[in-house]
């Protein structure tokens, strides 16, 4: 055995561990660097900028201006997000429930084929489509008038909060349904069959047997949808006329017309707080569940 081989063999476990550690760090470094430089640094910079005035000193002026000018928009954003999530949850549960419990094979197959389509439509296309569909003289009202279901004088534009909620729901329902239907499909069918054998109808089965078991997946889908809703710019910009509008639009407005990143970042702060709050609730419930195991 050569000397070098001997030294390799006699290397202490501690040395091996430090080597392994070095390789691990090297392996994780690119991903870590991407997170630090593309996510953490911009986030910290954005938060700090919200508290800095034109001369570089600390200030709360940007926050108070954001509240004074865009307080209504913050409230509007929260209301739209909550309403959209409620609609998304209701429709996703209905679709995923039917995919899992439905007893008409062709209807299940048709629904399974149809519901994913909006996933492949970009938000900006969804926004433009909604704009021509929901306008006062748009496609939806024209079809209703053709069918004799709507008098022309009674036609109204849905290009307001209703159009926004509808578009967000249309775009996000397939995503949440995809997660939810997947989770439901992986459940032990025996529990469902037992409940059915004992006389529970499908609705009761859905709400008392299936849904409690897939609730964490539903929450994940809704939290991810919330983050998407909070960050989409094109849809509110294209659908909502005037104010109040979503925070993203007002941030873009502040940057485009005033070159004012400070107040835009102050508005961003409200977005972070809102999503962080939801994430905290989710993490807390997950941790409690883990601890209870």
């Amino acid at each position, binding site marked *: 055995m050569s000397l070098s081989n001997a030294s390799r063999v006699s290397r202490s476990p501690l040395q091996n561990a430090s080597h392994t550690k070095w390789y691990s760090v090297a392996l994780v470094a690119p991903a870590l660097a991407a997170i630090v430089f593309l996510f953490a640094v911009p986030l910290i910079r954005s938060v700090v900028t919200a508290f800095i005035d034109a001369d570089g000193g600390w200030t709360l002026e940007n926050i108070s201006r954001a509240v004074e*000018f865009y307080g*209504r928009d913050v409230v509007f954003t929260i209301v739209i997000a909550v309403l959209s999530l409620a609609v998304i949850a209701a429709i996703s549960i209905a679709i995923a429930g039917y995919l899992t419990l439905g007893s008409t094979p062709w209807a299940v197959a048709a629904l399974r084929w149809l519901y994913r389509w909006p996933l492949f439509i970009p938000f900006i296309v969804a926004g433009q489509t909604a*704009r*021509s569909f929901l*306008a*006062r*003289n*748009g496609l939806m009202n024209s079809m209703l008038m053709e069918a004799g279901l709507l008098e022309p004088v009674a036609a109204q*534009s849905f*290009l307001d909060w209703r159009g926004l909620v509808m578009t967000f729901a249309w775009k996000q329902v397939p995503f949440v349904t995809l997660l939810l239907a997947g989770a439901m499909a992986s459940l032990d069918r025996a529990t469902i069959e037992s409940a059915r054998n004992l006389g529970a109808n499908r609705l009761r089965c859905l709400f008392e047997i299936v849904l409690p078991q897939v609730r964490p997946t539903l929450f994940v889908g809704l939290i991810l949808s919330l983050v998407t809703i909070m960050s989409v710019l094109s849809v509110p*910009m*294209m*659908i*909502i*006329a*005037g*104010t109040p*509008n979503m925070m993203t*639009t*007002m941030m873009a*407005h502040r*940057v*485009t*017309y*005033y*070159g004012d990143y400070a107040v835009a970042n102050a508005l961003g702060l409200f977005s972070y707080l809102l999503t962080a709050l939801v994430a905290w609730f989710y993490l807390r419930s997950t941790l409690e569940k883990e601890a209870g195991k």
Partner: protein
Amino acid sequence: MTLKLISVSLLAAAAFTSIAHAQTLNVVTAGDTNMVDYINDFLAPRFEELHPGVSVRALGTGPGDAGSQAIYEKIVAQADADTWDVDVAVIHQRMAGQMTEQGMLANYRDDIETGHLVTRSTAENALGVNVSGYVMPMFHSQIAIAYNPDLISEPPQSYEDLVQWAAENPGQFGYNGITGGMAGVGFVFGWLSAFSGMADQIANGPWDDGAVEEWAPALEALRAFNQNVTITPGNAGTLDAMNRGEIAMGPVWMDMFYTWVADGRLNPNLQLLILEPGMPGQPMYYTVAERAAEPELAREFIAFATSPEIQAEGIVGQFNWFPGIDAEHVRDQMDQDAWDRLYADVSPEIMAERGISMPQADYFQAILEAYERSVSN
């Protein structure tokens, strides 16, 4: 072997010579993707043909003032370098003033042969800042009112008439407020110029701290006016609403209007007018960076791009913008039909009389904030 060596040496020498002569002109432009396309697809091939060995590289920084802001930040980031990676910068008015004041732009207009072809005030003054010599207008874009003559035989010709017309025809006038694009913003600037009694001061400065308070009656009237109008989602939203017959009048960019008509996306019967006392328009400027790596080439590029032929074929012919240089120089390069189409609804005389400049930079922001505080909130 010797032969091989010689041929390799010759090839290397040829490659070196071509590298030595290859020049790259960096054109950085604010604005939408159409600006980058215009430089890449229209200007660059023609300029490169006239200048063998030169390649034009266009970089877009995004639409609106934010795009110009990005160019400013790009230059600030390399302020200490001997040369900058920006030769020609295409920017909006607000940033042209700021960059001129901060010594980032070269004074070049008198050095190019097309420099004397522009006499418009916006070539001298950008939102209250003297930019004479530092800028060459690429095009002029004008805001006007589009109306449907089938619905309105005698459209209101002034802001004052419009107020009365909107009260008599609620919901028939539509505009996009100030958060949905510059057509709405320009309409509001025109309103303040008409009703504040400070039109000159708003256009040219100087800034007066008490100005905002003096606008209270004009803003109050605008708030009342808004009760009778339809607010549309964006510049395109106004045109869409006109197309669908939801509104009969609304402010639009004239070039966008003509482009939509040419593309068959807008009712060709619609017409344009500019309200009295005036509605704003704005140019975008060709500028040369103070420490451009290729200043001579940059000047040649701008002279080429502002020549009457290119202005007629590219700026008017492709985009329906008004030429950056004076219209009379472009007229000879255009056929009568194209000329008539461009000035069909708004004559050059009306343009000169009612086309006003955007507000001076301080007033620009103050008007928007006053609107957000008193009208839309």
